[in-house]
């Protein structure tokens, strides 16, 4: 069909009879232009309407309870409401600070996306580049799990994680143990490097990072007071929620990364094989560097879903100090919420802006990946 079409075009006297000033397509008349502009404008207004509404309410000041007239442009511009949210995000009875909520959401989102990409990429590599027994069925099983909403395994995860409880002393010991190993290990490396006089900027900063993390962990261990806290329960901690969230994020990471890896041309790897590289060398030296944008996009998508995750956190967490931004937003919404709507709007904006800005910057890569890795497999 395509061939005949191009043939006809090339034989048709286009330049003479059908020339319309352009090489292709129909030229639209002013009347059509007007109609189409009206259509596009209506669509644009419908898209912008809720966004403008929420932006203008968030700029109204801290005590703007509820609007009585429609207002899509702010009557004044003040960041009072944002300040009010930072001072006291939820009701006065809840002692959690905004930064605590934001940090909890950040820890969850960053931890889950980092971990799922870290272990997902090697599985994606195997699915993308190896032929092996059971490949199809293993990949289909991942696809099937991907179809399931995270709520489909909520009950068993809740029951399982609730069973894991320990005294906070053990928790404290784990902090001391990991922190100590990190501190001593980095110190040994540092001493070794110093003796050989091989400290570069890179190794120096890595050593500093190791020391800092080790010291932080030790400090964390010291600050835990086992008597004040009762039992440590994995389910109510951020770790428990993180585990449950990884159960959804990991299949997504594998599926998405496999789609990206499939698009990386294989010529480089073939050349490396001829040069005698092993699969491991190919993975670490060629595939991983080429896949960096894909890793970043997949990690970001994981981060975005973790940053606003609600269902699991709301079910698992009952300790106020572990509450997340999404849970706080929930208390500000709905019929019986007493929070001023300017504060609700400011909170929505503060949750959206960080992820939305990054999304817009990565948009080109994300859209390509969603349609390609997400569906075609």
């Amino acid at each position: 069909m395509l061939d005949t079409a191009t043939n006809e075009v090339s034989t048709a006297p286009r330049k003479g009879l059908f020339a319309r000033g352009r090489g292709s397509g129909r030229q639209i008349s002013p009347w059509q232009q007007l109609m189409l502009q009206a259509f596009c404008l209506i669509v644009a207004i419908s898209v912008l309407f809720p966004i403008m509404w929420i932006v203008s309410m968030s700029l109204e000041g801290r005590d703007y309870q509820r609007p009585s007239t429609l207002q899509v442009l702010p009557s004044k511009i003040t960041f009072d409401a944002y300040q009010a949210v930072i001072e006291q995000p939820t009701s006065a009875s809840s002692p959690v600070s905004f930064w605590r909520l934001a940090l909890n959401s950040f820890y969850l989102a960053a931890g889950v996306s980092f971990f799922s990409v870290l272990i997902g990429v090697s599985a994606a590599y195997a699915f993308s580049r190896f032929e092996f027994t059971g490949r199809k069925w293993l990949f289909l099983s991942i696809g099937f799990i991907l179809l399931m909403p995270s709520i489909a395994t909520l009950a068993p995860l809740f029951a399982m994680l609730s069973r894991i409880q320990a005294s906070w002393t053990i928790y404290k010991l784990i902090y001391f143990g990991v922190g100590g190993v990190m501190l001593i290990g980095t110190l040994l490396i540092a001493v070794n490097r110093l003796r050989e006089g091989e400290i570069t900027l890179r190794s120096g900063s890595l050593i500093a990072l190791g020391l800092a993390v080790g010291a932080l962990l030790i400090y964390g261990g010291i600050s835990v007071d086992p008597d004040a806290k009762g039992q440590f329960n994995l389910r109510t901690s951020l770790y428990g929620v993180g585990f449950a969230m990884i159960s959804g994020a990991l299949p997504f990471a594998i599926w998405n990364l496999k789609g990206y890896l499939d698009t990386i041309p294989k010529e480089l790897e073939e050349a490396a094989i001829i040069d005698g590289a092993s699969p491991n060398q190919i993975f670490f030296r060629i595939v991983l560097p080429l896949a960096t944008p894909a890793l970043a996009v997949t990690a970001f998508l994981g981060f975005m879903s973790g940053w606003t995750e609600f269902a699991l956190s709301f079910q698992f967490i009952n300790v106020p100090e572990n509450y997340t931004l999404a849970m706080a937003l929930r208390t500000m919404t709905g019929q019986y919420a007493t929070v001023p709507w300017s504060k609700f709007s400011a909170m929505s904006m503060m949750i959206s802006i960080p992820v939305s800005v990054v999304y817009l910057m990565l948009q080109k890569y994300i859209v390509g990946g969603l349609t390609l890795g997400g569906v075609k497999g």
Partner: protein
Amino acid sequence: MASVDRSIERSNQEGGGELSFWQRTKRTRTAYLYLVPAFFVMAIITFYPIGYQFWMSLTDFGARSVNPYAKTYVAPKYVGFDNYTKILNNDIKKIDADLNTFNFWRILGFNLWWTFSNVIFHVGLGIIIAVVLNIEGLWFKRIYRAIYILPMVLPQLVIATVWRNMFDAQSGAVNLGLAAVGRLFNANPDSFHIRWLQQIEDPIPGIPLPLSYFAMLIANIWLGWPFMTIVATGALQSIPKELYEAASIDGATGIQQFWKITLPLLRPAMVPATILGIITTFNLFYIIYFISEGGPLGRTEILVTQAYKLIQGNSLYGIGAAFSVYMFVILGAISAITAKISRVAESYDA
């Protein structure tokens, strides 16, 4: 990667003539090595819970069975397939006053209709707007494209909570906007206190759908069409312009060109996107949970939100597990059907 496999086989054969089993499976072993971390983690937090879920669904696992270290602990008791039959017969209504509107078949039916009606709008609007944006000579294309992506960019949680407040009967932007328009026509502004999310009477006589369904349909159309537009735009830009030129030489009108050229060539891209849309809309938790909360009278409940309420609100872990097992079966059936449809569509293309 077939060629690489072959080259490795070749180098192996050159090295040692007859290959032992150990040598032949070298690549499979390397592949498994790469799979081990992910499948180890998934075994613990995905596959084992699925099995555990099945066991839970055969017990009367309740709130007191959660904490085995508590004094009030009650071990879950085996009840066979009781939970499953209770769900199908809607007997769990009697357990809790919260659940007195529970009706499994109504939830399933509404869920299917919800998915179908939404995806139709998403795909239809998505294609129309993509085609309009693709018209040559249209002004401000770039501005429109930049605006139209916004619903995709915002977190769904925020979109859902914002639309919940938009549909508020007293101060929501929808009612206030209608009142503002009504004022132009001298209508009484007090007549625009539409209780979008709470009204029990059906807005259209004869169609058993509550007003909150239409409210959420509006919100979800707003949320869903940009993805379809983006997919369709990508496909439109790969259609060679010569096709349209040839068609107009042959005397085809714009509408004929749309049906005979544009739509058939969009299909390979739109079919997988539609399947993705069906699955995500079927499981769309945030919109329903935050906007209508399943109301009024549980009539806009879908499977995910009902499962969440059984577990989160009512602590019925055993019944919730059985409900989730039903969800697995239903979603498996839907994905099998959609896979079949997409395969039929593919063979039609070829």
